[in-house]
Each structure stands twice: as C-alpha cells, then as structure tokens.
C-alpha cells in the first residue's frame, strides 16, 4: 500500500517537475552583439544601471511594428533612455551586424532603421536562420552620431525582437572600429588580460589573467594555476579543479 502511494507521488512529482522544466524560463531569442547593441553594452557591464536586461539581453521581444529600443517592455525601458551614456561605435558606410541567437525562429524579415528611414531589409521568406546571423548594411549616406534600430520579425508569431545600436558614422568604409568612449563608466574587473600576473600569493579575484604556475589564495588556502586563463565569477579556485590545484 505504502509502495503504491509512493509510486503515485513519485509519478506526480515527476510529471509536475517536467511541466515546470518545459514551460521554464523565457524562451528567448536574439540580439546584436557587434557593433555592440545597447543590450550588449548593458550585459557586458559597459553601461551601468540597465536593470534586468543584463540577465537576458536576448529577450527584447515585443509586438511587431514598433520603433523603440525596448520592444515596448516596461522592464527594459532603460534601453530607450537617451540620457544614458551609450557608447557609439565608429563605423564607415558599410557595417556588418552580427547577431547572437538563442532560438531559431522562422523569420520573415530583418529590418534596419535610422530614424524613419529603413536603410536595409533582408527577407528570409519564413525560413529558419542559421545558428548565427550577419548582415552587411549600407547606411545610405547617414553620417555623425546615429541610433540604428534593428528588428527581427518572426514569421509564425506576431512578435519581433528589437536591438538598438549607437553608431558614429564617419567617412571611409570597412569594419566597425571601437571608439574611445570617455563617457563610459569604468568597470572594476579589467576587461582584457593586459594585466601582468599578480604577485605570488595574492588573493584571487575576477577579471585577472593568471599564468600557468602562478599562485593565489582563496578562502584561506593556496592554489596553483594549472592552465592560463582570465578569471571569472563561477571559476573560483576550489570550484574548477581543471584550472587550479590546491597547494
């Protein structure tokens, strides 16, 4: 009898948790990674105080036909806040926009707007895109600082994904070049492994390049680096035996 109850309860629990898994988190979608979109700048910490978009830059999904940066979603309204210090990427007239996709929705079109002018459209005719997408766009003679709005229109839903990219459009052609961006809030962890390895025995911290053989302390113990890497949150020495061994 008890066994029967147990197995029924087990089965119910299994069904319940399966349902939770399958209807789980937001099943999103995609955004422009480079030149960095506003949500990419927020997610990488280059622009501060962006709100919850930092956890899901791929989720700016709203009804089709909008012309804003946040897809009409109040929780992402900061993306349309023109008073924020959005860094602009210096580009020429031809720019390649690269998308990170986390779901391959059948696609009607990809549209690129500057102001009210649609500078480019790519018609996918309802096909599923590849795992990544790149478009080469001619900016149609626009110059100076511009806010470009990219829209990914999904074929089989009424929804679209929105990504704004701030550009400083100069002469010449070619690929985007990073601008020096004096307006940006500096971020504590150093973004690139330009730092010399810290002195032996220093305390482990994130955003630091560690060479093979260097040592750090963490939680009162000393660890030796087994493989050169730039440290990240979640890669604390006791958690990643592939990278650190306790001395």
């Amino acid at each position: 009898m008890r066994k029967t109850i147990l197995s029924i309860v087990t089965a119910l629990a299994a069904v319940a948790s399966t349902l939770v898994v399958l209807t789980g988190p937001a099943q999103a979608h995609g955004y422009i990674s480079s030149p960095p979109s506003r949500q990419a700048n927020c997610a990488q910490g280059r622009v501060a105080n962006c709100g919850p978009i930092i956890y899901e830059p791929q989720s700016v999904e709203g009804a089709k036909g909008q012309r804003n940066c946040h897809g009409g979603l109040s929780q992402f309204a900061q993306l349309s806040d023109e008073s924020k210090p959005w860094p602009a990427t210096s580009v020429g007239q031809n720019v390649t926009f690269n998308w990170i996709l986390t779901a391959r929705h059948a696609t009607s079109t990809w549209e690129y707007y500057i102001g009210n002018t649609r500078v480019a459209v790519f018609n996918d005719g309802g096909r599923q895109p590849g795992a990544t997408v790149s478009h080469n766009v001619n900016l149609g003679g626009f110059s100076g600082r511009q806010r470009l709005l990219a829209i990914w229109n999904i074929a089989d839903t009424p929804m679209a994904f929105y990504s704004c990219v701030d550009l400083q459009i100069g002469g010449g052609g070619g690929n985007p070049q990073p601008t020096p961006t004096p307006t940006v809030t500096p971020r504590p962890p150093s973004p690139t492994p330009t730092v010399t390895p810290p002195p032996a025995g220093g305390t482990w911290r994130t955003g630091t390049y560690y060479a093979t053989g260097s040592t750090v302390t963490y939680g009162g113990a000393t660890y030796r680096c087994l493989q050169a890497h730039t440290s990240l949150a979640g890669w604390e020495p006791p958690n990643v035996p592939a990278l650190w061994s306790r001395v």
Partner: protein
Amino acid sequence: MKRLAIVLALVAGCSAPAEPAFNAADVMFLQMMIPHHEQGIQMAAIAEERAARPEVRALASAIRATQSDEAKTMTSRLTRWEQPMEAPPGSHDAHGGLHETRPSDILSLEKAPAGQFDVNFLNLLAGHQHNAVDMARTEVKTGLDTSTKDLAKRIEESRGAQIQEMLRLLAAPQR
C-alpha cells in the same frame, strides 16, 4: 511542485534508508546539460586550433577544461542515481529544437573562413551559453538535489561571466 517534492522526500524517508533526494528536474537538467557541455567542448576545441586572437584561444582552452570536468561530475551523478544518460525521446524538443546547437552548426564553424572565425565562434558559443544559463536557472528553481543545484548556480554564474567576456571581445575587435 515544491510541495510534491517535499512529500516525495518525506514518504521516501519513511520507507527507505537515507537516499540522496533528487527529483525529475535534477535528472532532466543533467541529461540535457551533458550533451550541451559536449557541444561546447567541441566548439572550444575547434577554437583552440583556429582562433586568431590569443585571448579567444585562452578562453576556449579554459572553457574546454572546466566543462570537461563538469561533464564527468554530471555523468557520474546520473550513474550513481541509476538514471539513464538520455531523457526519453521527445522530452527535450518541446520548443521544436529551436534552442539546439546542431551538429551542422559545429561543422560550419570548423569551415568558417579564417577572417571570420573568431566572430563566428564568439557569437555561436555566446548563444549556446545563454541557453545553458536558462537551463541552469530552471534547475535552481525546480531541482531538489543540493549539489546539482549548486552546480547549476555555478554554471549560471560562470556562463554569464563568459558571455560578458565574449561580448567584450566582440565589441573590441583586434586590429
């Protein structure tokens, strides 16, 4: 759901010796995460060979090393729990496979032109890791086994940090 899991644990506690308590969400998380890790490892291995920028190669090496360890941990946990390594067919494709990285994606990464490789790799792996974050968040919310939920928390954190790093690398292409 949480209540059911507690009931399950209580009932199990009355009738059986103290088994590590886990639920179907834990099992499915591990079953989905192991192949997801293996794909990440494949992409990273390709990048270690082909990436032009040393920072990209270093990131790829560290990702391959850490994910290989995690995959071993996850595999041995499923074995210890006497659970299958794979979920029943069909249980993963509730979203029509929209979130999967396909073998063909990895193949086309392998064949990407040299000048395009770093950008393709970073965009492909960032999308892949965004999906890992989503799976890990689901496990943190719905799982039962403490060490699996802890692993999920670390996966959520480290993949989030990797995505930040990849976005930085994409935003500042090397001249």
